[in-house]
Structure formats: structure tokens, C-alpha cells
């Protein structure tokens, strides 16, 4: 079905672009009627994901008149597939840098404000496990085979140290932490950001056995089919949220929904900022990513 999907997507994009051109010619400020799909990586449950993103997207919509429809996949792998197929007009994902997805040529518009994130392998603080070698042959929780920070980076590290573990996939990072918490796995691979939010909200402490070099957090990128004029409006709206009371209010609501710590908001970014990601995905030993 990929060819058919591609055709449909092409037609849809063509219609969108055509519509945009027609609206531009008409000279009216009718872009408010434009609707773009906004795909996000489901690190959390769909409800939490919606509670986080809907206030932000409502702000952008209000600011630009462009309707951003939140697309939440059932799993990370479904999200990855959608990214690879270019189904989202806008995508919040690192998977756009994977070789499989690079043909879609998503362009980075903004990235989250604040520190970079790191991939981490963690155990419960009460666990007797002190080193990675103790994980040899044991169960380790991952989000899925498509997560870069939560799967590819930590698994690449384990493989390079020749530590063979039994991966247990939980669908999303908080799911992996939940499995670790109930003892179904001995360790979990997560991003430092998700882990800290989880600790803040649930009060569970973890011990970090290993962490990666810092990576920029998930960028928001646009598919090339979205006209640049529109992408620019959107980029400005996201980057300017912290400059306006309504934007700050929306960010606070979103942060409260998931227990996110400041700083909030987004800064403008480019694809070049994510060269490390692309480089990793090109050279990683992990070949079974989805």
C-alpha cells in the first residue's frame, strides 16, 4: 500500500498547496481555514499527550489562523511509520533523521527550549544492580524498536560493550518505567527528560547506570509540501510563545498536565542543529530499528 498512500498524500498535499496558492491569489487572509496534521511521538498516554499539546496547538491556531490537528498514534512504531511515509504535515520527532525517513526531507522549525536530553539506562534506586555488565542476559525495557533516544542510542551502547540483554518493549517510555517499577524488567532505557518528569509526577527514584552524550530534544519539523510562508508563521508562533501572556499561559497549562519542569517553550532551530542525530542514525550498530 505505500505507493497508494503516497499517491493519496501527494493529492492531498497538492490540494493543500493549490488551495494555498488560490487563497494567496485571492489576497484574502483566509489561511485561517487551513488545516495541517501535527504528528507527535506518543511518549505518554494519548490523553496526557492531548492535554499537553492541545493548549499549545490552540495557541498557534489562534495566532496564525492555521488549524493544527493533533495526530496521536497508538505506538511509537506507528508514529515512525507515519513519519517515514510523510503522513504528517508537521512532525515532532527525531525519527525524521533516520535514513528511511530522510527521503521525506522534513525541515526543522523549532526545538524545545532548555537543556539537551540524554539517553539513559536506569534501574530502581533500591535495585542491587550497579553496572551495565550486570544486565547481561537480563530483561531491559525499551519503548519500541523505533525510538532513537529510548532504544537505538542505549542499545547501540550495549552492543558496543558486547552486553547482550533481552529487550522488553513497552510502547512508550513511561510504559517502560512502569514495567521497571513493577519488576517485570531489571532496567529501562529512557530519555533523561521523560524520566525526570516521571519522577516528579510519580515520586519514584531511579539510579542511572549509563547516559549518552546530550542530544537536542525532539524538534518540530515541517514536510516540504507545506508552503514556506505557512511554515514560517508556524515557526514564529511556536518560538514567540514565551513572549506573550497567552503563549505562556498555554505552556503552563501544558506543563501542568504532564508535570514538565521549566524552561517551557520553543526556540527556532534548523536541521543542521541535529547533525549529531543524523550521524548517529547513520552509524549505529542497531539495525533492527523500525
Amino acid at each position, binding site marked *: 500500500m505505500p505507493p497508494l498512500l503516497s499517491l493519496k498524500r501527494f493529492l492531498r498535499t497538492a490540494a493543500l498547496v493549490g488551495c494555498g496558492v488560490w487563497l494567496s491569489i485571492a489576497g484574502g487572509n483566509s489561511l485561517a481555514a487551513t488545516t495541517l496534521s501535527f504528528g507527535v511521538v506518543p511518549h505518554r*498516554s*494519548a*490523553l496526557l*499527550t*492531548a*492535554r*499537553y*499539546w*492541545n*493548549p499549545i*496547538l*490552540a495557541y498557534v491556531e489562534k495566532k496564525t489562523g492555521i488549524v493544527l490537528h*493533533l*495526530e*496521536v*498514534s*497508538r505506538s511509537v512504531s506507528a508514529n515512525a511509520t507515519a513519519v517515514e511515509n510523510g503522513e504528517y504535515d508537521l512532525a515532532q520527532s527525531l525519527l525524521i533523521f533516520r535514513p528511511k525517513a530522510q527521503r521525506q526531507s522534513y525541515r526543522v522549525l523549532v526545538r524545545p527550549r532548555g537543556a539537551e536530553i540524554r539517553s539513559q539506562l536506569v534501574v530502581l534506586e533500591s535495585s542491587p544492580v550497579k553496572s551495565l555488565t550486570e544486565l547481561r542476559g537480563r530483561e531491559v525495557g525499551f519503548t519500541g524498536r523505533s525510538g532513537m533516544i529510548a532504544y537505538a542510542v542505549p542499545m547501540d551502547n550495549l552492543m558496543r560493550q558486547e552486553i547482550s540483554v533481552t529487550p522488553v518493549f513497552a510502547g512508550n517510555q513511561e510504559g517502560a518505567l512502569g514495567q521497571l517499577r513493577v519488576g517485570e524488567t531489571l532496567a529501562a532505557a529512557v530519555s533523561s527528560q521523560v524520566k525526570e518528569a516521571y519522577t516528579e509526577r510519580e515520586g519514584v527514584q531511579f539510579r542511572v547506570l549509563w547516559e549518552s552524550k546530550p542530544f537536542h530534544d525532539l524538534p518540530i519539523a515541517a514536510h516540504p509540501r507545506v508552503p514556506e510562508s505557512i511554515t514560517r508563521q508556524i515557526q514564529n508562533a511556536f518560538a514567540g510563545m514565551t513572549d506573550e501572556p497567552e503563549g505562556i499561559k498555554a505552556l503552563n*497549562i*501544558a506543563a501542568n*498536565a504532564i508535570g514538565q519542569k521549566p524552561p517551557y517553550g520553543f526556540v527556532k532551530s534548523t536541521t543542521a542543529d541535529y547533525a549529531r542525530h543524523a550521524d548517529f542514525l547513520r552509524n549505529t550498530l542497531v539495525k533492527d530499528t523500525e
Partner: protein
Amino acid sequence: MLRPIYALWDRFSIVGRLLLTTGLGLLIAGALLLQVAAWRDATTAREELVRQLADDLTMLPSLLAEPLIVGDYATMRQILGSYAHRRGIASIHYRSKAGKTLDARNPYVAPTAPTLFAVWLDVDDLKGETQLEVGERRYGTLEVRLTAQPAINQSWEGAKFHLLIIGLSIGLDFLGIFLVLRTGLSPLRALDAGAAKVADGDLEARVEISGGRELRRTIAAFNAMADALKRDAEQARLAEERLQEQSSTLRTILDYAPMGIWLLNPDKSLAFVNKACCDAAGVSETDFLAAPGSALAFDKETADRYRAANEATLLSDGPHIVKEKLQFANGKTHDLEIIRVRLLDKDGAPNGRLIGLAIDVTARRAAEARIRLLAGVFEHAREGITLTDLQKRIVDVNPSFCKITGYSRDEIVGRTPKMLQSGQHDAAFYASMWESIRTSGHWQGEVWNRRKNGTIYPEWLSITTLSGGESGSGEDDHYLGVFTDITDLKAHQDRLEHLAHFDALTHLPNRVLLADRLQMALSQARRNGQTLAVCYLDLDEFKPVNDRYGHQFGDRLLIEVSNRLVQSLRGGDTVARLGGDEFVLLLNDVESVAECDLALTRLLRNIAEPLIIDGHSVNVSASLGLTLFPEDDADADTLLRHADQSLYLAKEAGRNRYHMFDVSHDHGLRARRESLASFTNALISGELRLYYQPKVDMREGQVVGAEALIRWQHPERGLLSPAQFLSAIENTPTDLAVGEWVIQEALRQMQEWRAVGLDIPVSVNISPYHLSKKDFVSRLAELLAAYPDTPHHRLEIEVLETTTLEDIGHVTSLMEECQSFGVDFALDDFGTGYSSLTYLKRLPANTLKIDQTFIRDMLKDKDDLAIVEGITGLTQAFHRTVIAEGVETVEHGIMLLQMGCDQAQGYGIARPMPAADFPSWASQWQPDPVWVLAAGVQCAAADVPLLMGEMDHRRWVEELKRHLADTTVALPSHVVGGHCPFDEWLNGSGASRHGGTEAYQRIAPLHLQLHTIGTQVINFRDAGCHREASARIPELEAANEAMADAIHTLLISISMT
């Protein structure tokens, strides 16, 4: 306006009024309760609907949030569909912001309440809606409609239940009123009925106390009054009954008094006569009272005498007594004693009345006369008579008693008969006697008593209990003993007894008494576990003495011998004379045969001592036969017969000796006779069978013949082998019959086998007795003629080697005659008969059968091996065929093949089998592969272990494999640390004979390797490493094959040299 209602009310009974008022009250109360309950139900239903709507509008958005965000409408539809089934929900409607809708409806709830009830209840359906928002984003609108129908239905069910309760309450109320009134009025009715019964004279009538308090008191008073009436009536009745009873008692006394009683009025008329008077006169009381004169039929003189007596009585203070003879109505005259007494009034003055008593003394006078007569009998009886009381104290004795016992009456009266006891009888005798008297009232028997002068005498005593004497009660009160002195009678009886049981000449017990004594002695021996010797003795050469000196001399001799016999034996033993010079001795409690021997030897020696009679000295001796019981567990007659048989043998053995009966010999003879009869019957009944044991050529791998062996299919003991029955028929006609049956059956079987293509020689065994018969050859020819299709040379007769040696001339000629018409012979059990070479040369038997005892032991016993080797060599020298019997193992076959004995039979090849099984066995038989190998090589006996070595180790490896697969299979005996028999050859004769050859030098290390691997395999198994143990098996098999190859090489090398 209220008048008609009052009129109607007046017409109602109390019950009706009560029912109407209470019914109305309950109806109104119930209606009010129903109204309140319905109002409460309606309020609750309305509140419940509002609450449920609020809950649904809260809960549904939560349930829908996740699929709503993801856009999973299928899940949303499922959630709505499931939720809509909840009670009270009519429908749910979702409309997205984009206009997409989802609907879910609850199945229709049918109304059960009437429409009027639903309207009256006034509960309406409800609806509400809410917006679905997540993160301040509105996704759509949700509308929920609730229906009031379930609540209305439920309220209607409650109302129906209320109505039912109201109806039930009214019904129970009516029932209660009815029952209370009914039970309240019933005691009055009962009181009325009770009073009527008492009035009718039923003083038992009472009324049960019940009802109200006043009623209960009234009823109690009534019952008390009835009780008082009843008590008075009862007392009056009892007084009357007592009077009647006293009157009746007095009348009965007078009627049954043993005397006539009458009462005379002052006017001399009879006031009363009793039954005795009426019976004596033979008239009724009425007739007697009416006409006493005619009833008594007195003559004038008697009547005057009576009148005078009455007058005299009336004038005297005391009784007036006279004696009269009167004839009664029965015609008999009775002696009467008549007593008359006048009666006094309450002041003690004569009132003119008198009472008369007439006592019949006829019987008393007759008894007095009888006693006088009996006293005469007592005095003059010849038998002694003793009368004692119940304490056995002598009351009286007659003169004969005093005469017999010597005691006077005064000496004996007051004592007990114990003073007469002689001491001849024990306490049990007297106890038995008195027990008999107690139970039957009588005893009689012989008693030995002591006279006053001390002599003891027998008497025949009869004791009887007497009753009705002094006490008059009818119970026993005396014992009467009557006895006769039987001293003379006893003496006569003893003389007759002696004549009946003792020999008149020697006074020894005769045959009659001997029989009795023998029975007693047997009983005693059996009871006490003792041994009894029964001896039969006869004088040797008595007749010549009798003839020479005469019968009187002979009688004197017999008396003397009798005396010596008695003196030679113990007191408890018996010597009896049967007649002539025959005596029987019974020796009780013989301790041992040695003791018996000593006693009898002494006895015979005593008899043999010279006797001097009438100046003549004679010498006689005796012979004696004896048998010992219970070793000889026979009856008395048989024991005497056995002793007599032994006496005969003693005489046969030279006289003046004794011979003891041989029980086991006798049993053996008897058993053999029974066994012979049984077997003869089996032959007739067709219970004999022939089984066939194959004979094979081990080198050629062929079946070369069969030996027919007889079996007895016993109906109870099963299949019997010849050893269990053949000895019984030896040297009997049955022996011949069986031999002929065997030949005939074998010929018949050969014919049957030939018909199915099995043509082999069959050998039969013929007994020496059968062979010795002169007509053996002619009978054989007749039997062969009956089967013309069977070639004669196919029949072979097996003869024991020992038989041929007994009469070699006869056997040789018999063999030659039989061979003339084709039948051949085999010498069976060869090697056991000490045949000389000359005999062997003369005997024309074609086949020698080596006895199985040599074959069985030849592998262990070098002498047996040498014998087998020698016999085989002889047969080759004399050009005879040899066959080995008793081949039980493969090793036996190998050894025989190496010695040149190719033919064999035995359990190692096949057991004897029914004829029907033989053809199938013969077609399938294959020689053991080792025999094939052994047949192909020629080696000395010392190298036979080499041949066996290969076979042993193949078997050893197989056993080891089986053991690994199943540990219940025994481990090969020398698998671990054990001694391998092959080592003996390897290190012994093998090393010395072939140690220098290359083939031999290969064998030893391979043998060591084989056992080393075997040991490792078992060690692995013991350690639980089954996989490793199994993994070594191929290696073990390879080592075994390599050693077998080396053995073959060495064998070929040995054969070539």
C-alpha cells in the same frame, strides 16, 4: 337519612358487625399506605434519574477521551454501545465538531404498569448533554437520554405487592374474629351437655375446663359435684359386694367340708344342709329341705334314735357324739361319727337350734387294716428292707436286714446306711446313685457292703423314694431300700465269666478276651502316643512232641510255656492263647525297637530253656512275628494278620527267632499295585501321549530324526514324565502293552508325517522285560505289517546298554532278526554299562547314544570329556553312528563338533514336543551360528575356549546394551572388575600354544580394550551420565568386532596348521 343504615346495622349479628368495622378500617389504612409508598417511589425515581444523568455525563467523557484523541471511532462506538445497555438509558448521541455522529440505543423496555398508574405516578424521561474537551480543545457534543419506564414498572410491582398485603390482612382479620367467637362460646355448650348426662345417670360425665375465668370456675364446681356423687355410689356398691362375698365364702366352706353339716330349727325343721349331706342322700338341697324324711329314708328305729339324740343335745352343754352305720344313696354303707352341738343366742342361752356334723370314717378304718397287713409283709419279707428319712437316717429295718447285715434294729435305727459301706465304691458311684434317685425317684444296682462281722458281700439294692407318708403333702419324705444278698449268684457268674474269656487249659486270655484287650491297648496307645507291639508266637516242632509223648504231655508243656511267657513279660502286658501252640502277646508302651528286641530275645531264650515234665527233658523253641503300632497304623485284625505274616517269615528264616513287619515295604507294594492299576486304566482310557525330541546334525544343520518319549496326560496331575510312572509297570504285562502301544503310535505318527512331507526316522525305547519276550520279533513284524507305507528302516529301537549285557546272546540274535526286515537298533545311555570292546563288536546296533551325564559335565570334568572323546573314537573305529544326548548349551555343541560327534539331541536344541508341533519346528530350525563357525575350523579341545570367546563377548556386549536400556536386566557377571573366563585361555593354554602368532598378540590388547570400555560405560551409567554411557556403545561394538576378527584369523591359522 341515616335510618335505613341503622335498620341494616340492627340486622347484623355480632360477628357481622365486627367483620364490617374492622374490614373498613384496614381498607382505608391500606389505601393511605399505598398512596404514600407510590409518592415515595416517584420521588426516588425522579431523583435517581437526575443523579444517573449527572453520573453518565461525567463518566462517558472519561471513557471516550483516549479513543477520541486517537480518532478511534470504532472503539468509541463499542464504548457507547456497551454503556447504553445500562439500566435507565434510552439513548446516547455523539456529534463531533466536524459533524460526525455516533448513536447508541438501549433496547426498548416494555411498560408493565397500566397507563393510568404511569400518569398518576408522574415520572418523566430525562435528557442532558455535555461537551467533550481535552486540553481546552473541544472535540464534540455528547447527549444522553434517560427513560423513566424501568422505575415506573418497578413502582407498579411494589403497588401490586401492597394491594396483596392489604387483601391478606383483611382475610386474616376475618378469620381471627371468627375463631375467637367460636372458641369463646363452646365451653357453655359443653357444660350444658355434661349436666344432661349426669341427669341421665352417667356419673362419669365431666366437662373440660376452658373459656373465660367465670366459665372455668363454673365448670370446676360442676365437676366437683359429679365426683362426690360418684364416690357415694361406689361405697354403697362395695358394701353390698362384701356381704355377698362373705355369704358365698361361708356357703363354700360348708359345702366342701369333708363332713355332712346341717342346722335344725327350734321346730325341728331343717334350716340348712350342706352339699355333703345332699350327695350322701342323692337328692338336691331343695328336695332335702322340703322333705328330710323321704330324703334320708330312715326306718322308724333310726328316726327315733335321731330324734332322741337331738333332744339330748339340746339339753346338754357339750357336744353329743355317736357312731352310726348308714347306707348312702350310692348303695354303700358308710361308718359315720355324728357330732351334735346346741346353739346359743347372743346372751349365751340355748335358742332351740342345733348344728349337726357327720364325719365319714370308712376310709380311715380301711387304711388301718392295710397298715396292719403291710407290717406283716415288712416283718416276714426275705429281702432286707431299710426305711430312711430324707436325711438318710434309718427309720426302720426289717428282720431280714438284721439277718443279712448282722446288725440289730436298735444298733442301726437313727444311723445312716453309710455305716454299711465297704469302701469298694468311690464317691462318684454314690453321687451318681443319688442323682438318679433325685431325678427319677428310683435306683437299682449292685452294691458291695460290709456286714457287722467285717465281711464284704454283694447285694442287689433297689432304692425308691416314698411320698404321701407323714407329711401328707404328696412330696418325697422317705427312702425305701430293698436288697437281696447275691453272694452266691456272683460266685456263679464269675465262674461263667472265666470260662468265656480264658483258656481252660492255661488260664490265659482266650481269643475273645484278646480282641477286647487289643482294642483297649490300641486306644491307650493312640491316646497316649505310645507304641504297642503285637506279637504272634508259635512253638517250633510242637507236633512231634505231642505225637511222641501224648496229648496230656503236650498240655503240660503248653501250661509250662504259658507260665514262662507270663513270667517273661511285664505285668501290664497280655499273653493270650489262640489255640494249639499259637499265642499272641501284646506289649504296651514299647519305648524303642531296641527295648522290644531285648524283651523278645529274652522271651525266646526263656522258652528255649529245657523243660522237665514227668521226668522227660524236652527242648522246644518258638518263632515270633511282630508289628508295631502306630508305625503300622492298621486296625486290630490287620495288625494280627501282619504279625502272622511276620511269623511266617521268621519260620522261613530258620525258626527260634522273631521277625518284624516292614511297614514301608508293605506300603511300597501297595502303592505300586495301585499305581499299576491306575496306569493300566490310563492306557485303556487313551491318556498316554508320545512327545518327540528332535535329533539334529549340527555340522550339516539338518534334522536327522526324532526320539519318541512317552507322557501321561493325567486328568488331575497334568502331564507326567516317565520317571513318575514307569517303575510301577516294570516286568508286568502292562509293560508289554505299553511297549507295543509306543511302537504302534510311532509308526502311525511317521505315516502321518510322511503325508505332510516330513520323512524322518523315529526311535522308540523298549524295556528289557519286553525285549526278553520270545514273541517280540513276531509281534514287531505284525505291527510293522499294519503300516505298509512306512519304510521299516525308519523305525529304530533304543535299547539300554545295560539290558544288552544281561543276555548278550539273546539280544544279539533278536537284533539280527529285526535287522533282517529293516529295523535298526541304538544302544541308549551308552557308557554306563561297562561294555567291553568284544561286546561292542558283537552287538549289531548301528547307533550309540552317549549318556547325557557325560555330555552335561564334559566342559567341567576332564574325565567325562575323555569318555565322550573315547566313545566318539570307538564309533569311528567300529563304523557306527554316534549321537550325544543332553546337549544343553551351545558350548556343548562346539565341543562335540570338535570331537567329531556331529549328531545331538537335548534341551539346548529342543525339548520334547507334541507331534503336531514337530513339522513346524523342523522347518524353521537353524543351527547356532557358532556351530557353523566351529564346523568350519578344526582345533584341539584345548582351543575350544577360543571359539567360545567370540560368542561369549558378543553375548556380553548385547547384555550390557540391554542393561543400559533397562536397568532391571541383570548386569553381565564379569563386566566390572570381574574375571572374564576368556582370560584363562588367553593367559593359559592360548598363550602357551599360540603366544608367538601375530593373531594371538592382537587378541589380548583388544580383549583388554573391550573390557576397559565396558567398565567406563558402567561407570558413566552409575554417575547418572546416560548420554555419555550410550555414546561409548559404538566404540564398544567396534572393539568387539575387531577382537572377533582377530579370533577368526587365529582360528583359520590353527585350522591350516
